[in-house]
């Protein structure tokens, strides 16, 4: 009986190991969908094996099932607290899922522990760049860029952050090495974004199109191209560009936001709403995305959802004129005339204040 029992136990152990080896072999062969059930079968037998759970997370991530991967990574971390490889994988899964804030949190903590890890540093910088935290990117990368002047990845990320922060001269110094490297997609992208900033939309489109020809998979190239097309009124071209960006990078904030806004104009409210929700997943609470989502709800006649969104937005951004205007519209359509009048008056007051600040003239 004991033998049997032992035999049974030994047989169970061998069986479990066999299942795990099979899962790893499939995983290594790239057959992640077949590896996943094998890992699950093993974990039914050995639920506390942190490595196997981490492997299952990796297989799920490989299959694009990032939400499930995150569950497994978190469970793996419960078993092996603080394991840096699992934390890196968890951060990457957050990143891929568009939970950029969560990803940034993990990368940030990893960076504090391993400040010399270049991959973590660049990923953290990229997260902040996506969240529009340009100043933080600049602070993070400036020292590294000085120490590694030939590192084009540093130069690219830092140059982009400086451009977005409107520090054009400093950006120029940082991106010079990229431009000197000859005609590259990165150089064209940077030139294109600079021209976009300078409102030279035709030249921006030419550079960005060249960048996309040189490297069609360069992150954000199609996103910027879309933004340039919007400025020329070519919304069809803009739509195509944003769609292309999102095929490559479903978490690109601007593409989700801008395409969402375009689809609202096209009265495709369901699609617009999905994209804007994604944008808000990448940058939770971002004002423009929240405003666009509320505008979709307003246009689609979902007045109470629009009202709730705008009221919440205005609580956090009380000087957002367009939000007051949209909220006034919602109140009027809900029959709340007094509230509509109040919001309308607020919008007018804020507009006047803006104008007073904006216009200074020479009078004879």
């Amino acid at each position: 009986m004991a033998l049997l029992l032992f035999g049974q136990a030994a047989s169970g152990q061998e069986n479990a190991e066999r299942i795990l080896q099979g899962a790893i072999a499939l995983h290594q062969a790239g057959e992640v969908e077949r590896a996943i059930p094998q890992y699950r079968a093993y974990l039914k037998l050995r639920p506390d094996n942190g490595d196997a759970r981490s492997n299952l997370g990796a297989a799920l991530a490989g299959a694009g099932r990032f939400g499930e991967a995150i569950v497994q990574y978190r469970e793996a971390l419960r078993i092996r607290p603080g394991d840096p490889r699992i934390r890196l994988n968890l951060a990457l899964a957050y990143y891929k899922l568009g939970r950029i804030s969560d990803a940034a949190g993990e990368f940030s903590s990893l960076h504090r522990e391993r400040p010399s890890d270049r991959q973590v540093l660049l990923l953290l910088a990229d997260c902040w760049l996506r969240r529009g935290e340009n100043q933080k990117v600049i602070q993070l990368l400036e020292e590294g860029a000085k120490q590694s002047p030939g590192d084009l990845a540093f130069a690219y990320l830092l140059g982009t952050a400086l451009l977005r922060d409107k520090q054009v001269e400093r950006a120029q110094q940082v991106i010079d090495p990229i431009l000197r490297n000859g005609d590259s997609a990165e150089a064209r992208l940077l030139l294109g974004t600079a021209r976009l900033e300078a409102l030279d939309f035709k030249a921006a489109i030419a550079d960005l199109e060249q960048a996309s020809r040189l490297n069609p998979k360069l992150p954000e190239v199609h996103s910027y191209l879309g933004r340039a097309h919007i400025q020329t009124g070519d919304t069809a071209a803009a739509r195509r560009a944003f769609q292309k960006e999102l095929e490559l990078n479903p978490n690109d904030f601007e593409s989700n936001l801008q395409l969402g806004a375009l689809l609202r104009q096209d009265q495709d409210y369901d699609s617009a709403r999905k994209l804007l929700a994604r944008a808000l997943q990448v940058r939770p609470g971002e004002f423009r995305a929240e405003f666009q989502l509320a505008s979709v709800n307003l246009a689609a006649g979902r007045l109470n959802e629009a009202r709730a969104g705008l009221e919440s937005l205005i609580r956090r951004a009380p000087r957002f004129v367009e939000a007051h205007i949209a909220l006034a519209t919602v109140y009027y359509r809900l029959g709340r005339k007094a509230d509509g009048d109040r919001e309308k008056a607020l919008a007018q007051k804020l507009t006047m204040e803006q104008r007073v600040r904006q216009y200074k003239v020479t009078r004879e």
Partner: protein
Amino acid sequence: MKRALLPLAAGTGAAWLLLAAAEPAGRPSFTDVAPRSKISYVTNNGFAGGRKFFPQPMCGGVAIFDFDNDGRLDIFFTNGASLPELTKKDKSYFNCLLRQTGGGAFEDITSRAGLSGEHLDFNFGVAAGDYDNDGFADLFLCGIGRNVLYHNNGDGTFTDVTAASGIGGKPADTLSIAAAWFDYDRDGLQDLFVSNYTLWNPKSDARCMMSDRDYYCDPRLYPSVPHQLFRNLGKGRFTEVTAKAGFAAAPGKGMGVSVADFNDDGWMDLFVAHDTEPNALFVNRKNGTFEEKGLELGVAYNENAQVGSSMGCDARDFNNDGKIDIFYNNLMGQIWQLLRNRGDLFQSYSSLSQVHKLSMPFSGWSNGFIDYNNDGWKDIYSANGDVDMMSEKSPQHDTLFENVDGKSFTDVSAGMGKDFLRKGYQRGSAFGDLNGDGALDIVVTSLNEPPRILLNSGAPGNHWLMLDLVGRKSARDAIGAKVKLTTAAGRVLYNHVAVSVGFMSSSDRRVHFGLGGEGKIASVEIVWPSGIRQVLKGVAAGRVLRVEEPEK
């Protein structure tokens, strides 16, 4: 994630092939016939280089109307003044009346008619309308100084009756840009709405400069002002009802104004395009007052809750669904707005209809929905040219966006002929069939240039009908009367009487229908401003049909 910074292969992007769209056979074009007549009028805004004054970009209102009832449409132009003196110090600033002698030829009879305006200052818009129901169209002129009402004496002359009528008053320094005749209280007498812009005089003029060069200041430097409404009391007398009617509480920077029954309740409403301010939709409350509901109804701002530089406007049913839509243009880089009337509110249709994309390079001023090719779909004409002369993109040609089945628009300007494509700073425009061929012609002014009288060559094979509606219980001009035309094949088309069209301008009040290839009309249904319905059967196409309002 990894940012690629790899050596890059040669571009593999697809090459773009630009294919020229073939012009459909029979598409009309326009020819400027102004040079065939002796016309001395040149739009003169008083700019002679150097100092620029704020009102100068707005000059050259146009009216097309038959002032002598000879069946031929005539033309009136407003003109500017010398600045800062603010006088029409010589003939170059005089207003102008052109009498048509036939076939698109004109003679200048300004002086004989008493319309030169030598005692006036800088004039902007003009509104033609028969305010006393005597069968002769009168003229109201807007300006910097006093506004003027000219009574048509019926003998080829006009008399300034402003003082006696009680219509001209306005707060000091108010710039009145445009005006619209309409019967807001359905008493059978045409009232007058005046679209006011701001407060300005030469001494208060803000000077804006860049590198020692003047440029026209942003309108946001100036305050908004209330518009005005004058109620027609009959016997040539008016009383101002601005405050009583609710306009004092809704100021703006008024540009174009469109009159129409937007909510189909039988009472005339007003859309006013506001430059750099939210547009206004004044809904008639049927009790002598109006409620401004632009925000609620979706016309005040663009889709992103932002204002534009709204200029001229027109209100017509562009998709023949029985509801009156709105169009207004903007400066380049902004979106010209095509607002589709859903019944309960308006929704921007600019993006879906391609108007967004087509309009981006242009700064539009006057405009109008005109069915230029008589296919039954109203197209969008715009008179273009930037505010100031700042770059090579500033002088612009007019545009014509052809309506494709009421769903989208395509830019056909390039095929409209060299006269149509003349670049400049176009401002006022008006529409009417000047030579009686059933195709709508266009008269356009351009800053400091002679006007163009653009005759439409017509679309062979397409039929048309023009209705000259004469009110009896309604005011004689029947502004706002709605017409539903059903062809023999069952196609339904809509239009209405509208005179205040575009910017600073006044178009022929007759109602035009293009019928496409169909020459047979099943019925014409008219809803008069009085509410009386009239149905006509057996109407033949290809003519101007005069219809008098029945007793009931």
